[in-house]
């Protein structure tokens, strides 16, 4: 749509109530024009409980949120429910932690409520560190009051007076939106002393993270809030009993908190009817509600997708995401961030919920979903995640610090064509040791990217080791760029982008790449219109 289309829209749609056919969304799959937003395939299969209001409210104006039943759940909780009733509702709803672990929120709250302590805290983890995930950023920026209302209700349920939101410093807009929302909530009497005229008082502060992935781990996050380096500690006593400043502490992530007002307002039965499994007796019995995924990578429609738990990978990637672009073939999807794994095409019909993903060797994580096509190398991806985790390991415990370094060393030599026989078994052995003996969940789940690459893409790993070949054409040391004489037209297009000036040849004559000075950047491969550069 262009500014020049506006007169026609005003004339025909606003005045006459007609639809401007030529401006409608064109569905690339069916080739048909779509009239209603809900009918666009990208939105049709989504259920946007948490994200839905993002487009309907101005996050800088609390009145917008209030107009859409905002803070009605808080009013209901304070006026009509005992704290235990709130906890029971959250437990029966089956709400499980959206930050990765999937621990039932109600069970956590219940323990915190019973724990002894002079002060109690509720915390919100907005340190969204998983590379490739940005759902929490979107909620904080687009609908900050939903998170704040959830925290106030949680604080009422467990008996906390103080709350903190721990936000990534890389998210300046989220920081701004949350700070403004807290101010507005305070001036409206939703935060502070004697909230809504009840006997309950609570307030929230914001703490900026310092850029450390490990601070998403509960004990590390709390250490950071205390002004220390964010190193995890052993959890002989859980943080719900002794957390921040040794006091009972409830920590949930942004998306989990944002679900709480919906549950209180619309009831546990409504919430548990969405998703899969039966949580009426056992809060671990299923995965209820919706989950937001950040659908990115080699997929046509990138963006945030919110679907009921139990939706299959195929529905998310192909029906909503529109499949893989440029006619390439789907190869794998990576879920759960660095702690998750890569899942192959054969698992596309897997329903996405906490337990099924874990069963396949990956995990829900915070909801990153990175689609990979045939041009993605699974060894390179595994190496990428281990490199990430090696950098982010805090170094406190040996298996994680040294084990990840050892894994990286082996993966590095594999992608350089120096892999040895037995490397796969060695990777598996070290991975198992890291998973079993690390102090915190960062190490505990760190081997997943390597183990799933071996489990589902073993032949590709073997090709690197045995044949010194990267089938996807990614691993630089294993690549050779050369000109296919029969296809080269001598057009010179590859000369200009070549940073090494290693292409020789006169116009209209076949060019030659000097492999001794080639830096393997692939620029010639990308610009050649005649497929005359081979690798």
């Amino acid at each position, binding site marked *: 749509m262009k500014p020049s289309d506006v007169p026609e829209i005003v004339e025909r749609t606003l005045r006459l109530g007609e639809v401007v056919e030529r401006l409608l969304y064109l569905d690339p799959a069916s080739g048909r024009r779509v009239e209603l937003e809900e009918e666009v395939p990208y939105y049709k299969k989504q259920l946007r409980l948490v994200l839905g209001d993002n487009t309907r409210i101005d996050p800088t104006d609390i009145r917008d949120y209030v107009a859409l039943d905002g803070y009605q759940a808080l009013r209901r909780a304070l006026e009509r429910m005992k704290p235990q009733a709130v906890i029971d509702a959250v437990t029966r709803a089956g709400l499980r932690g959206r930050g990765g672990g999937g621990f039932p929120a109600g069970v956590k709250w219940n323990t915190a409520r019973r724990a002894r302590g002079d002060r109690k805290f509720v915390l919100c983890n907005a340190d*969204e*560190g*998983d*590379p*490739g*995930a*940005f759902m929490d*950023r979107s909620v904080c920026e687009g609908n900050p009051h939903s998170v704040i209302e959830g925290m106030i209700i949680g604080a009422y349920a467990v008996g906390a007076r103080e709350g903190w939101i721990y936000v*990534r*410093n*890389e*998210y*300046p807009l989220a920081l701004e939106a949350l700070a403004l929302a807290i101010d507005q909530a305070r001036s409206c009497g939703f935060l502070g002393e004697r909230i809504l005229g009840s006997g309950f008082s609570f307030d929230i502060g914001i*703490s*900026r*993270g*310092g*850029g*450390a*992935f490990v601070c998403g781990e509960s004990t590390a996050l709390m250490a*950071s*809030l*205390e*002004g*220390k*380096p*964010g190193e995890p500690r052993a959890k002989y006593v859980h943080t719900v009993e002794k957390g921040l400043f040794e006091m009972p502490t409830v920590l949930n992530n942004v998306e989990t908190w944002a679900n709480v007002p919906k549950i209180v307002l619309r009831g546990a039965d409504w919430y548990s009817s969405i998703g899969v499994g039966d949580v009426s007796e056992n809060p671990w019995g299923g995965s209820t509600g919706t989950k937001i995924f*950040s659908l*990115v*990578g*080699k997929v046509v429609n*990138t*963006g945030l997708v919110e679907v009921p738990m139990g939706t299959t990978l195929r529905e998310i990637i192909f029906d909503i995401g529109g499949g893989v672009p440029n006619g390439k073939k789907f190869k794998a999807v*990576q879920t759960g*961030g660095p702690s998750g794994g890569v899942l192959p095409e054969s698992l596309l019909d897997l329903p996405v919920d906490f337990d099924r993903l874990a069963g396949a060797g990956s995990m829900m994580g915070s909801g*990153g979903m*990175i689609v*990979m096509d045939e041009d*993605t190398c699974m060894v390179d*991806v595994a190496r*990428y*995640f281990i490199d*990430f985790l090696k*950098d*982010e390991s*805090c170094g406190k415990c040996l298996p994680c610090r040294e084990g990840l370094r050892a894994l990286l060393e082996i993966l590095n030599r594999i992608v350089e064509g120096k892999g040895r026989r037995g490397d796969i078994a060695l990777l598996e052995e070290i991975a198992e040791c890291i998973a079993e003996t690390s102090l915190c969940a960062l190490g505990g789940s760190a081997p997943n990217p390597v183990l799933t690459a071996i489990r589902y893409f073993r032949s590709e790993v073997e090709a690197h080791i045995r044949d010194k070949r990267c089938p996807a054409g990614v691993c630089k040391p294993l690549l050779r760029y050369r000109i296919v004489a029969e296809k080269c037209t001598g057009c010179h297009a590859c000369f200009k*982008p070549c*940073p090494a000036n290693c292409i020789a040849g006169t116009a209209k004559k076949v060019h030659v790449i000097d492999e001794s000075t080639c*830096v393997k*950047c*692939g*620029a010639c491969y*990308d*610009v050649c219109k005649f497929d005359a550069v081979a690798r």
Partner: protein
Amino acid sequence: MGRIETIRAIETSLESRRAAAGFATTPAAPDAPAVETILDRHGRASAQIIAILQDLQEQHRYLPEPELRYISRQLDVPMTRLYAIATFYKAFRLEPRGRHEVCLCMGTACHVRGGERVKDAIERSLGVAAGETTADMRFSFETVRCLGCCGQAPVMTVDGKIYGKLDHLTVGAALESHT
């Protein structure tokens, strides 16, 4: 002697030995009023030390040593702890920065969409590796693990402004306009 006094005593003795050996002692005096404003903003609480250092860094774009020493004395927090925090968290820098900060995202989505090749191209264009500053102090080049705008991958920021859908062929030109 308490723990903090012991550390203080060691620091003082090291300082005098450095001076005796002909090394430069603590350079330039800190901008005390500016630091005081930051300290007051955070209630002079040592639990707020990360926020204090973040504010200090916002002012200077790195953490200058004189200011750190001043904070250490005022809050009675040993330099070792400030150093531990400054080196643990990725956001902190102990060296001065270039005029323009180039920050390339190395998140997963950027990685599978060619982030590594964009990184090579920037390094070739600036002549420095990630984590370094050009000799003319024009650019500092960093990589971060995710800027959280994966739909735009591959992405970089220059002085906070987002440049999306980069490719290795054109990224050099995008940097040229920053003098």
